[in-house]
């Protein structure tokens, strides 16, 4: 891709058969104006940021499809289809340069581009989808005949286990005469006629190719092969897509550090470097002026300003004098972001844990990882506190207290916890409503608004953000101490 100064752009020489979604397999051979270099990237970033927000707010797949459709039309559309296509490709490749430069940037870009691809794919019709599968050159054949017969019953079990039902007469899943249709209850008054149809087409694929379908038990697996339904093709291609982009980012990073950065230091490099910081929001790895807390204030500050997830963890530490690993990470990094210095952190954890495990064991088993979190051991990475998106996606198990209470607590426990935070029963209903709809961050935002009596338009997407906003409000209410 050649970047040139303001000149008339030559039309794309892209000889690809123009599928609706490019796969970004090779860098395009075209000329790009310098202004477009930045503008196209910024527009695509708006789309990716929108995708990121949508995921953080717990939007279901159908909502994400609509969101992506809207975002794409808003920022990337062009009346000329081939110009739109070029913008798509150019913006992707520019952002590769921007986001290849560190592990965190790579991870974010990979997640968002993959999600974008997934939902754009889902919006395509079946023929277009099959064409894209073909583009990847995947060797998987459809299962037919005797093999399919032998699997029918269990394939039906898989479909039923996912609760997929379709009302009579409006069945998007095709049922053929040789496939099994099972009815559950029959139509009589309040019961629906339920069809559980096995789909027409299944692909036999090594289970490694569809990890997300395996993880959620959405496929039948036998002797190392997963039987992927036509409607699940998206998982297959998304895995391929992600793997390809992941490798490409490594190569791009190499090229960037060895040649491009130096060569372009007066032209593209400043643009690339500015682009990555503008859209991710603060990561709270450096605490601000508001947020330096000392050990003696910590109990009071926990009650007044911690979001529910951290309050719960904090209370558990005080109560049990222990926390399992997930909890130590989530709370520990949060406290770091809130301004607790390493020495105070060590004192805090030591004071609690030694009540249970003794001072020697604390030094041996726990002090190291606290220092590790502050970047004083091992790789010496200064770890950043977890954002809501990460916390919501965590998986607390037996004996754990981390995760997002709005997601992971039972309704009763959540109500009790919200009551302790001072929510009225009316305020609680609004929050529980959001929880039922899986809008966990909106639930937390509503809690914030109820507790502090003010509105939070930005929405909570990071526990440290909750803390800082809370401190701002509380400090503005108390008069400053006399000098």
């Amino acid at each position, binding site marked *: 891709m050649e970047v040139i100064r303001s000149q008339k752009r030559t039309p794309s020489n892209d000889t690809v058969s123009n599928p609706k979604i490019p796969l970004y397999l090779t860098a395009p051979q075209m000329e790009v104006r310098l202004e477009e270099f930045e503008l196209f990237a910024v527009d695509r970033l708006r789309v990716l940021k929108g995708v990121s927000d949508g995921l953080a707010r717990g939007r279901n797949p159908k909502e994400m499809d609509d969101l992506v459709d809207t975002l794409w039309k808003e920022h990337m559309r062009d009346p000329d289809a081939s110009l739109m296509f070029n913008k798509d490709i150019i913006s992707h490749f520019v952002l590769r340069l921007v986001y290849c430069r560190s592990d965190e940037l790579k991870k974010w870009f990979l997640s968002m581009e993959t999600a974008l691809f997934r939902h754009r794919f889902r919006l395509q019709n079946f023929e277009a989808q099959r064409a894209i599968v073909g583009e990847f050159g995947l060797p998987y054949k459809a299962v037919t005949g005797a093999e399919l017969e032998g699997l029918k019953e*269990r394939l039906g079990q898989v479909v*039923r*286990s996912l609760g997929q039902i379709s009302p009579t007469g409006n069945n998007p899943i095709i049922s053929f005469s040789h496939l099994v249709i099972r009815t559950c209850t029959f139509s009589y008054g309040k019961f629906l006629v339920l069809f*559980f149809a096995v789909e027409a087409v299944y692909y036999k694929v090594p289970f490694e190719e569809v990890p997300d379908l395996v*993880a959620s038990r959405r496929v039948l697996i036998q*002797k*190392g092969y997963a039987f992927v339904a036509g409607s699940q093709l998206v998982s297959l291609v998304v895995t391929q897509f992600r793997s390809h982009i992941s490798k490409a980012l490594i190569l791009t990073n190499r090229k960037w550090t060895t040649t491009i950065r130096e060569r372009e230091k007066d032209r593209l490099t400043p643009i690339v470097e500015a682009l990555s910081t503008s859209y991710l929001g603060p990561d709270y790895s450096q605490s601000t002026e508001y947020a330096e807390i000392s050990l003696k204030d910590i109990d009071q500050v926990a009650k007044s300003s911690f979001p529910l997830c951290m309050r719960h963890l904090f209370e558990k530490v005080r109560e049990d004098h222990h926390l399992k690993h997930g909890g130590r990470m989530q709370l520990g990094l949060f406290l770091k972001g809130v301004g607790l210095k390493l020495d105070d952190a060590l004192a805090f954890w030591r004071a609690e844990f030694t009540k249970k495990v003794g001072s020697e064991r604390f030094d041996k088993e726990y002090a190291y990882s606290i220092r590790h979190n502050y970047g004083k051991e091992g790789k010496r990475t200064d770890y950043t506190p977890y954002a809501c998106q990460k916390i919501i996606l965590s998986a607390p198990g037996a004996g*754990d207290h981390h995760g997002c209470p709005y997601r992971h607590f*039972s309704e009763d426990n959540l109500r009790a916890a919200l009551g302790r935070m001072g929510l009225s029963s009316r305020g609680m209903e609004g929050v529980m409503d959001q929880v039922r709809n899986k809008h966990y961050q909106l639930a937390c935002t509503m809690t914030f608004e109820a507790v502090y009596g003010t509105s939070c338009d930005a929405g909570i997407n990071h526990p440290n953000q909750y803390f800082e906003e809370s401190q701002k409000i509380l400090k503005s209410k108390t008069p400053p101490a006399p000098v």
Partner: protein
Amino acid sequence: MFITSEFTTARNLFPYTDIHKWLSYGHDGKHPGCDEYYFGRREFSFTLENDVYLRYKSFKSVSSLEHAIKSCFPYKIDIGAVYSVDPDKRHAYSQTGTNVFTPVERELVFDIDITDYDDVRYCCSGADVCSKCWPLMTVAIKVIHTSLKEDFGFKHILWVFSGRRGVHCWVCDPKARRMTNEQRSAVAEYFRVYKGNENNARKVALMGYSLHPFLARSYVDFLKGFFEGELQANQSIFSTKDKYDKILEMISDEDIQSELREKWEKSANRSSLSEEAISLVRWEQLKNTLQSKKHKAPTLRMCVEEIVFTFTYPRIDLEVSKQMNHLLKAPFCVHPKTGRVCVPIDPNNCDEFDPLAVPTLSQLIEEINSGGSKMDVDDDDDDDDTDTSLLGKSIKFFRSSFLEPLLKSCKEEIESSYKTKIGKSKDSFSW
């Protein structure tokens, strides 16, 4: 805790040659297709007596491994991944560019610990284990082993007693060793059913209109029978109010809960049946009630199954399985707190495994002192039938059921990939 001299025995009895053969996966240098540096790229870690922890240890040969263990005196040895370069030379390689220090192969591993079942066992808690709760481990092995073989197609699976209160599983197929973290995570999640902790009451939520075939098979072949038989007999899970309240809370309908609670409170004192019999009667009553009322709400549809799964389904430690660089204790180590040897378990006969009958270090020492066995289990002898020592049986099982089939298949793979390579280079010479 242990005296160094006792541990000397442990170090002398450790089967170095067998472990080396296993972890070399056929790369013994005897075939031109072998990678002679393969074993040297494996990470080991040692835990020494003062809880000093040494990572990234690697060894070029079985003799350097043996020498290091006999001179460092570790009381715990962990096995890590095979890396791109020798772990103890990792600092020579930068983290960018082509020669990155990164894991390239690692067995797919699972760790099941009985303390994760504390909320459903009444005989013991914490680190204790007895014949009434150990069967939970047995059923876990059966469920996971069957799935690994039937669903995932794996063939070379080693189950090992962790020494005190759990089991480890090592899946050693080449395909398994090359899995990425994402794929490992997917398999771990596939096995995950229990999502409980103190904060939620319904810890197993089976949605949908039927069970996934894997769960259905596990239920029908193993879990249902275990729950209605051995578990009820050992744990009497309905016999007291505390116990049955816990189960009633898993039913999401208040009316059904009260109906059963009332019934059982009334019958509490009148019954002359044994605890076990009472439990069974109540279970039947619960099942019948749920069967007749199941259409009231979707969450009741599989309530019976949910209860069975809560008590019996395997609870694996997800974090252990998800990452390639996670270290896991080596088989045949001695557990420092119990003195028991971490011996292999036969998954096809796991009902007969008794954790309380596993040889301890003291027993082994006594056996040696009374002249009852050979000191050197490292012996490669084929007439192992004469070795009836406590440890000999385990070593024999390890060799015949696991190591030999594994090595045979490894050699075949090395042979065939070598032939392919030769074939390719021959073609490249054609004009």
